[in-house]
């Protein structure tokens, strides 16, 4: 019994407000109309049997036979005729009343339920809209607004909701702007630093070359050769910096096509066949097709695997591994790239996807920033979990869209 009560209670908790209200209305209508209808039917049937007695019929019948005159006979005949007609008509009228009661109750129940349904829908529609709008806002659709409702409490609630959404959108915009400003400041600082680095040797080489030229030094040709080499090398570094900046800034939008990702991942793994360790792939089927730019994702995955191999090489581990696994659920495709390399400190993890941030000696800090950008352009997400000296796992998720 307790179990049943618990079950009913759980079901009623799961029910929406309109469903609860509607069921309550149905119960009230049925409870109020059905007993009245049943009572009226029973009462009508009892009424039909009132005054119906074969003894009366027999007595009237006998009175025709016993009548002493023609007038008396006519009167008795008419009486019996009226009595018998009355019996039939009473039953007929009662059955009509009963049918009318049923039809009336039926129409009343249907009309009340229909009207109740429309009324409840009308009341709860704004609440449903509010719920849907709140869900959209929660899913970052900050531009969504509910059509204003004039007057009443729902109207006030809608106004408050729209104001809240406005504030949220403004705050989000300000946050984005602040982040963008901070990013550009940081990028400017890094670029200034990166430009400053080659400028010093260029300046020193030029000064040395000038001094040798003024003093008409004998080793001037040798100095020219060495300083020119230094200057050209630093100019090449500067060119490389400008190129990487250009690549990041001018990254194209992906050309999305419906593919299966497994063949592309296999191709990328094949590129690293000669490397130690050789990356391994685990696929948990089914992995449905989804829309992606194969060329861009190939680049992103290549970069992650390359980073893993470099991290293992840096750790000088002999039994290193790079493991790629692919799985899916109803809404997303999940890819992870795990290694047991050097790992990344918590501080560096926070800046991992920032452009021009690198912990490598010859890194330009573009690889992971570009990878993150590619994943974002696919409306996917990338996250990193790492423990220094133990290893790192990059987790990628892409939405499956029809």
């Amino acid at each position, binding site marked *: 019994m307790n179990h049943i009560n618990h079950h009913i209670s759980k079901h009623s908790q799961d029910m929406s407000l309109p469903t609860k209200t509607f069921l309550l209305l149905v119960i009230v209508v049925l409870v109020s109309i059905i007993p009245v*209808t049943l009572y009226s*039917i029973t009462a009508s049937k009892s009424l039909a049997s009132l005054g119906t007695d074969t003894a009366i019929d027999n007595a009237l019948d006998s009175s*025709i036979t016993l009548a002493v005159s023609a007038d008396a006979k006519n009167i008795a005949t008419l009486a*019996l*005729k009226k009595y018998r*007609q009355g019996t039939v008509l009473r039953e007929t009228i009662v059955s009509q009343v009963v049918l009318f009661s049923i039809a009336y109750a039926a129409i009343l129940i249907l009309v009340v*339920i229909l009207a109740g349904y429309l009324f409840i829908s009308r009341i709860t529609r704004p609440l449903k809209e509010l719920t849907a709008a709140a869900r959209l806002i929660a899913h970052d659709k900050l531009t969504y607004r509910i059509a204003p409702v004039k007057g009443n409490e729902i109207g006030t609630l809608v106004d408050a909701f729209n104001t809240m959404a406005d504030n949220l959108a403004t705050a989000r915009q300000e946050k984005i702007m602040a982040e963008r400003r901070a990013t550009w400041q940081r990028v400017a600082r890094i670029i200034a630093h990166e430009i400053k680095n080659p400028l010093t040797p260029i300046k020193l080489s030029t000064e040395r070359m000038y001094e040798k030229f003024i003093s008409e030094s004998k080793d001037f040709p040798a100095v020219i050769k060495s300083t020119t080499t230094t200057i050209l090398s630093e100019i090449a570094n500067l060119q490389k910096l400008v190129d990487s900046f250009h690549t990041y800034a001018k990254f194209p939008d992906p050309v999305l096509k419906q593919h299966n990702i497994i063949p592309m991942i296999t191709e990328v793994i094949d590129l690293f066949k000669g490397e130690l360790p050789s990356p391994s792939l685990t696929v948990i089927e089914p992995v449905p097709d989804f829309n992606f730019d194969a060329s861009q994702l190939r680049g992103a995955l290549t970069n992650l695997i390359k980073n893993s191999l470099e991290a293992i090489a840096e750790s000088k581990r002999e039994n290193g591994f790079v493991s790629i696994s692919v799985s899916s659920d109803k809404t997303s495709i999940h890819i992870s790239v795990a290694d047991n390399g050097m790992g990344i400190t918590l501080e560096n993890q926070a800046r991992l996807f920032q452009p021009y941030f690198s912990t490598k000696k010859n890194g330009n800090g573009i690889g992971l920033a570009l990878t993150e950008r590619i994943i974002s352009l696919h409306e996917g997400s990338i996250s990193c979990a790492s423990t220094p000296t133990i290893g790192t796992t990059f987790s990628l998720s892409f939405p499956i869209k029809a």
Partner: protein
Amino acid sequence: MDFLAGLLIAVKSLVFVGGYVSTDKSTPTFTSVEIITKTSQIAFSCELEHAFSSELAKLSVSGTTIPINLFAELRCKENDSLLIRVIVKHSILFDLSSRSFTLQKSYTTREDTTTVIDTALRHASTFIQIPLINRNQISAQRSYYISIYAILGKATMEAMNNNIIDLMFFWRYKRPFVRTQAFPGASLAQKP
């Protein structure tokens, strides 16, 4: 979904309440129609089943005259044109003093009398050899069909201050109807 569930509950409750009431209103129907070819005439016979529900039978023994009107039409199948319409009337009257039924038929002056209610009601709802049309009016090149329907007349109710009521109520205001298969005129037309 909620609305459908509510509607289902409502309909179920109506079925429940509806089952509480029982009314005796059997539906009258025609049995087979027989076409009879006479020397110069074509006639037909037919019978109405369930013409008298128990309520109507009770009303008949009150001495109330129960009239049954039969409408028969002979039509040409090709263009659905009406050749002839025949209306006949049977009236059943119970004499309370003699306790006997008298059956009057509009197409004959003869009156049948019986004291057995079943016989009286059966005779009232059986139409035998009703003259329809002269054979010389039938074209051998055409096809024909007969459609028949019946209605109950009105009756004066002395118990209701002599109000007149439509007895079709006892047939739920539905006319019994029958239509024969089309038959070739050649089978009925008079040979020259």
